[in-house]
Structures are given as C-alpha cells and as structure tokens.
C-alpha cells in the first residue's frame, strides 16, 4: 500500500497535520476494533476503555507520526524508496515535519507556552475555589481533576519548554553547528510531544483523572479512565525526552565548531548537556512507573497491589527516582539561561565559569541519590532518613556555586537593565527563596510537619516557576529579536516583568505561612481561619494571570509588525548574534572558528569567533 500523501496533501499548509490525524485515527480505530473483536471472541466484554485504549494508542501514535512525515520523509528510505526532500518555507514550516532545529525550537516554544497559559487558566479557577474555605465552584471530583490537570500540564511545560524550545533553537547555533546531530529524530521528538496536549485534552472525555501529577498508586490504578490517557501522555513525553536527550548529547559532543572546546561552551549549553544526561539516564524510570501502573490497572498485574504481594511504596521510589532528577531538568536550564543573560548584560565574563560548570555537574550527579526526600513521611527506616537528609543537604553546595557565578558577574559590571536582564535577576531572587525554603524540607524534623502542605506548594513554585519559567521568559525576551527578526516594545516588556514579578511573590510568599499553619495541599476545603490570607493569594494569582495578557499582546503585535531587529541588538558575543536575525537555514553563511571564550567582555580586540577559512589563529587545519 502506498501511504505517500498526494500532491495536494503535501502542498497544502495543513496537509501533513490533516494526513497525520487521519492516518492516526484510522490506525487507532482499526486496532481498537481488532482488540475488541479478539475480546469478544475470547468471551470477555468487548468494550473496555483501559485494554482497548492501551493497545490501540500505539497504533494511533504510529499512524500520526507516519502520516505527518515520518513515512514520506524518512521511513521510505529504509525500504529503498525515494523520500520527499522538499522543505516548506515561511509559516507553513511550523505545521510540517520540518527538520530545521530553529523551526523545531519555535514549535516547542509555541506549543508549550500555549499549554502554560491554558494551565494558568486552570490555576485561576483553583484560586477562585480557594477564595473560600468551603466548596464554592467545583465538586470535589471536579476540583481534583482541575488541580491534577494544572499540575501535570505545568510539569510538562517545565520539562519541555526551555530545553525543547531554547535547547533546540539555541544550542546548535551557540556551538556553531548547522543543525542538531539527528535532525529527523529531532522532528520526531517534537511531533511525539505534540500528542501530549491532545491526550491531556482527551482526558476530559474520559472522566478526567484525580491523582495529582504524582499519580500515586494504588489511587491511580482504580480511578477514572482519564488516568490511562495521563499515563500514556507521560510515557509519550518520556519517549520524546529520551530521543531529545540523545540528540543534545551527541550534538554537543560531536558538532562543536572548530575551537569550541568544552571550556568555551556557553553555560546554557552546559546546562542542556547535563540535563540531557539526566533525561537520557532517568526518563526510562518514569516510563516504567507509568507502564507498571497501566499493567496493574488493565491486566491486574500486582506491582503496587498489596493484596497480591505488591508494594505501593515501590511506585513512589520508581516515580521519584525519575522525578527528582526531573525537577532539575525543569529548573537548571532556566538558571543557566539567567546566567547567560547576566553575563551579556553585565558586560563582564561569567564569574568562576569552571566552578559554575562544576556546580551544574555536581547537581546532576547528586540529583540521582536524593529521591526519597519526597518520602520522608512514607515510613522509611532511620538509616534511609539519615542517608537522604545528608545527600539532600549537600546538594546546596553545588547549587551555591551557581549563585556565586551570578553575584560575581554582576559585581562591578555595567548592568544593562533591559527586560531579559530583569527576568534573569529575578531568577536569582526567586531561586534564592526556593533554595532556602528547600532546606526546611530537606530536614526531616521540620519536613514531617511541612510535607504535603502549601509550604511545599510555595517552595516548588519558587524553584520551578521562579527559576525555570522566569528563565524561560528571560530567554523569550533575550532571543525574540533573533528568532523573529523583530523588536518588541521595551516599555510593555518591563511592565510585564514588574507586574509578573510582584504578583508572583504576592501569590506564593503567603503560601509558606499557610502551609506552616495547617493548610494541606490538593484540597478545596480548609479551615476558615486561613480564608483571609487565601483571599490575598487569590488576588495575587489573578494579577499574575492578568500580567500575561501584556506579554501576549506585546509578543504577538511585535512578531507581526515590530520594528526590524539588527543581527546583534544586545552587542553580545556568543555565536547566535554573529549571524543574521533570524539566522539562515543552517545558521551561518561561513563556518565559525571559535577563538576565545563566550563571555570575554572587556577585551575588545578579541572576538568569540571569526568566520571564513582565511583567518586561522591556531595555525592548524
């Protein structure tokens, strides 16, 4: 059978999308029909959500990927057939199986920013509910669904927006490469990830899910059918992450430009590299946890079922074995992006560069052995508590080196307080609060009370939003001229910054007090003594939500009709600024040759890189 799209489907802007959906749906329903037929033949009730969807999903996913371009642009060559090498131009590239890393970066950014804003709307709804200590807006089941959907969507955003977005867009340019090492695998990673919001949206029609983003078994093996889609979404994003991690690791090792030693890598590249190591080694564990829950649920396997010899704590161990490293995957790229911006906007070299790299690698290594600090109240032995309190506290030493890098860089610099720099400095401030409050949670004695309260909610919003998402916005404003070739309104951008920064702190700072004073998390009902402060938090939250309207207006308007940007509006040294805005396909017209560090401000006579074959300061080929 010839699956190649017709000329119409190939040429129409939404052809690949439509064809992917069509093939995906056909394969999904064909597989579902087959499974139901087999079930009927075997004498079981043919229609059962869990088994049918768990089986048919993989066919639907394969159909979606084949239809959108894996078949016509890739898989055909495995059979010796000619592949379609045409490449769309203009906006149509974004709706196709495009291999250009810059297109893929923008695809990630727009997809996950949209998810961020939608999950933000869910947060607004939760804050309406929390304006009163009693139930006002949602039934308990609805609240749990909204809360769980907000949680998992934001976790996916935090995992994928900075690495998927700016990792893809910037890393190849920053190291002077033409593209990622495996461009088609890169496109595959994105289109895998694109299935995730579809699955999350589909949970609405499957009864939702109510087990939070952590989906602890056995709650997640017996709740409504939406949980199956949640687990499949997590596994799918996991596959995307593993493929993306392999791509980043190989790209950074193999495709650095001439002269780009590891001691000259921009710090953001180091962070993406280190976090890709985490993604590569640990994402399989979350896939395992999700798959084991599905198997418990669908086939009655008993990994986590105590009545059949399973252990619910096993789930928590496997889950956090990935998910603790994952919180660094969410936070560290944003932190590094802030350091990147801080150096360029302080007009000074990144202070103690090697020590900051050591800090990032130290965090990477230690993050593998701290997972059980999420389980201090789960009934661990004293020896386990002793071990995990130690490793967890020690992680503050490498983390401190990142602060040292930031402070040493701004010290006696020439701080250019434009929007990217403001967001970057806010990352330092927010992450400071997030880090310091982490110590209260790392210490078993205080954590036992604070575990599963709003203290934890405040803490992880300060780290993941305060560092990861603020870092994302630092990156958006920093690279907007490069990506779009246009300039945004600095006034509106600064309005957005101050509005967001103040609202963020108004929203999350009081939550520490709420948690300490008896407000547990994941609830719609709480003691009425806490109502006033919750009202304040809600108002802060609404203000935080509204601040993003300024962002949206500014970005959309500037993208369409903003003033044209120059190649290097920040006069920054790194390679992405040494090519046009936006850069051409394959990034550079002449191959760069890196001749000094990326942050060597104050030495005007040396550039970071020279272009063309004529200049060869190394005297080597």
């Amino acid at each position, binding site marked *: 059978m010839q699956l190649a799209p017709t000329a119409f489907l190939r040429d129409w802007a939404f052809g690949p999308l439509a064809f992917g959906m069509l093939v995906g749906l056909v394969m999904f329903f064909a597989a579902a029909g087959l499974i139901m037929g087999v079930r009927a033949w075997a004498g079981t009730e043919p229609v059962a959500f869990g088994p049918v969807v768990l089986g048919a999903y993989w066919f639907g996913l394969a159909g979606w990927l084949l239809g959108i371009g894996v078949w016509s642009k890739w898989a055909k060559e495995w059979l010796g057939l000619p592949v379609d090498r045409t490449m769309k131009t203009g906006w149509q590239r974004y709706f196709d199986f495009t291999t250009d890393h810059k297109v893929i970066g923008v695809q990630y950014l727009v997809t996950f920013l949209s998810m961020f804003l939608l999950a933000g709307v869910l947060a607004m709804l939760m804050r309406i509910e929390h304006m009163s200590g009693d139930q006002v807006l949602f039934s*308990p089941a609805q609240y749990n669904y909204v809360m769980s959907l907000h949680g998992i969507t934001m976790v996916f955003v935090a995992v994928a927006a900075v690495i998927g977005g700016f990792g893809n867009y910037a890393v190849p340019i920053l190291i002077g490469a033409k593209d990622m090492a495996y461009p088609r695998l890169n496109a595959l990673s994105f289109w895998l990830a694109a299935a995730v919001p579809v699955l999350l949206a589909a949970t609405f029609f499957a009864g939702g899910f109510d087990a939070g983003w952590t989906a602890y078994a056995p709650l997640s093996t017996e709740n409504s059918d939406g949980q199956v889609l949640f687990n499949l979404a997590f596994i799918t994003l996991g596959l995307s992450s593993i493929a993306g991690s392999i791509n980043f690791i190989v790209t950074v090792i193999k495709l650095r430009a001439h002269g780009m030693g590891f001691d000259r890598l921009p710090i953001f590249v180091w962070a993406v590299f280190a976090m890709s190591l985490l993604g590569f080694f640990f994402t399989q564990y979350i896939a395992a946890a999700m798959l084991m829950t599905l198997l418990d649920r669908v086939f009655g396997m008993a990994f986590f079922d105590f009545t059949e010899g399973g252990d619910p704590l096993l789930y928590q161990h496997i889950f956090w074995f990935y998910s603790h490293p994952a919180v660094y995957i969410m936070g560290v790229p944003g932190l590094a992006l802030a350091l990147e911006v801080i150096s360029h906007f302080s007009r000074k070299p990144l202070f103690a560069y*090697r020590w900051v790299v050591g800090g990032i690698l130290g965090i990477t290594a230690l993050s593998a052995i701290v997972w059980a600090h999420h389980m201090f109240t789960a009934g661990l032995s004293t020896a386990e508590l002793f071990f995990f309190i130690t490793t967890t506290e020690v992680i503050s030493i490498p983390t401190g080196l990142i602060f040292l890098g930031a402070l040493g860089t701004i*010290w006696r610099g020439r701080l250019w307080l434009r929007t990217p720099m403001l967001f970057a400095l806010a990352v330092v401030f927010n992450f400071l609060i997030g880090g310091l409050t982490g110590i209260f949670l790392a210490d078993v*004695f205080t954590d036992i009370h604070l575990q599963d309260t709003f203290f934890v909610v405040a803490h992880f919003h300060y780290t993941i939003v305060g560092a990861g998402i603020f870092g994302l916005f630092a990156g958006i404003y920093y690279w907007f001229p490069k990506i779009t070739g246009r300039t945004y309104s600095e006034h509106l951008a600064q309005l957005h910054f101050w509005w967001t920064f103040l609202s963020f702190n108004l929203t999350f700072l009081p939550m520490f007090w709420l948690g300490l004073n008896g407000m547990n*998390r994941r609830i719609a009902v709480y003691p009425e003594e806490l109502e006033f402060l919750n009202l304040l938090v809600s108002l802060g939250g609404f203000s935080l939500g509204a601040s993003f309207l300024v962002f949206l207006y500014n970005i959309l308007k500037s993208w369409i009709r903003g003033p044209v940007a120059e190649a290097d509006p920040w006069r920054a040294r790194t390679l992405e600024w040494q090519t046009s805005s936006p850069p051409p396909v394959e990034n550079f017209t002449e191959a760069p040759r890196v001749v000094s560090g990326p942050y060597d401000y104050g030495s005007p006579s040396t550039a970071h890189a020279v272009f063309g074959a004529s200049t060869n300061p190394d*005297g080597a080929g």
Partner: protein
Amino acid sequence: MAEICHKTSSILTTSSGTTTVIDLTGSEPQAHERKTLLNGRNVVTVFVIWLGLTVLGVFGAYHADIYPIAGNHLASQVDDAFRLLMMLAVPVFTFVVTILVYSMVRFRRKTDADDTPPHTFHSHGGVIWGWLVVTSGLTIAVLIHPGFTGLRELTADRHQDMVVEALAAQWSWNFTFPEHGVKLDKANDLMLPQGTRIRFDVTSRDVVHSLWLPMYRMKIDAVPGRTNHIYLTTGEPISFSEDPNVRVQCAELCGTGHPRMQVRVSIVDQQEFDIWLGGLEPVIVGNE
C-alpha cells in the same frame, strides 16, 4: 594582534590602559584581579548594608510569631528548629539580595556609550574558596543540627503508654484501642488522654493516606500493606473547637473525600477519656 594567545587557558584582557594576560582557570588570579574584585568602598558599603539587614532579619526571625499552636514539647522543638533555620537563612538571603540590589543601583549602565566596565575579572581564588568554605560549613552545621539531632529526637524514645491503631479508608479514619478492646469506626471525634505517650500504628485499607496532627507537627503515611509507627506525647487539654489545628487530617491525596477526611481531636484528662472509651464499640475478635 601578537598578544592574542592561542591556548584556551589564557585570555587577553584590557584594563585601565594596560594589557595583561591572565589565567582562565581561576587558580592563580593576578594581583590586579584580586584588587578589582574586592575594591574597598563598594565592599565596605555592601558589608554595612548586609550587616544591618542581617541584624534586623535575624531579630525578626527570632521573634516572628508565625507558628500554629504547639501541642507538646516536641512541637515546640520543631518550631525551634524552624526558627533556627530561618535565622541561618537570613544572612544568606540578605547577602544575595544586598549584592543584587546594590549592583542594580550602583553598577547600572547610565548611558549607551557606557558599555564596558572599568575592570573585568574572570575569577578569584580567595572568594571562591571562601564561598565554598562558608556554604559547606553552613550545610554541615544544619545537617548536624537540626538535621541529625532532630532525627534522633524523633526516633530515640521507643516506649509508649498506650497504642492506637489508625486504619485509613476512603474517606474516613478508623481507630482501635487494642489494650482496651474498643474501636471507633468512621470517626468524627477522637479523644486522647493528656500527658500520655501514644504509639500510632497506621495503615490503610485501600490507597495511600497520611495521618497528620498539625498541632504535634507529626505526620505519617498510611500505606496499604504496611504498618507505620509514630510516637507522640500528648500535652495539655485542648480541643478542635479552640483551634482547628487540633485535628487529624489526611495529608495525602486519596480521592474526592480527601479534604474532608479529618477528625476533630480533644485532649482530655484521664477520667474523661475513660468515660469516652467506655462508650465505644467493643472489638469482636475474628471480625476485623
């Protein structure tokens, strides 16, 4: 330029009209670097601001009355630990914030032409090692106290006057008093005798729950298939009607009934407790 070095370990920097080749590794900064980083006036100003904020902050952290009701001695010790961690966090917080804000004001770029700082430096061995020593010292300090000391406080005393078995189920708490042979299913109210050391044996019938007594700063998960223990000593008489933190609250998401899975607690004298126990349902052996 002839001076442009060709090794990755060194880099050209221009400063005050002089040209110096310095080492990128950070191990041996030259004298000129050391001077530019720790330039006198800025350092003194920052130190004074930091010291002032720190004194204020530590004073505030020490006196801040932000804690819920503490039902026993251990709860007060937990609050002391919280307070100590705050007092240790204050100097770190004020240090970073002082440098951030001071730099934003003092080192901000004033004109477009004013693009290059007068001094650049890549590294400073003394500052880096000092930073490492201080952060490591603080880490080890909080690890020992309240980290390890608190852990010992929690686990040292393994005796009890009374056992309460708590069985969690969606969505209620069921308590059994094995020494008295009575039980209380789907509890709304729980009475406990004052000044008594109680061991809670906590488990669950269905999903993971968590038994939280905010006033005792005590929490343990109810995990199906295993029994977890906590020990606590009740304090003076008090009841839920006086403070909402005198309650048992489920703290682990367990389904729709999760937020309302709570029990009002009263700490009463022994006599009242015995009367209350007498009114409970007897446990029939073999009919668990």
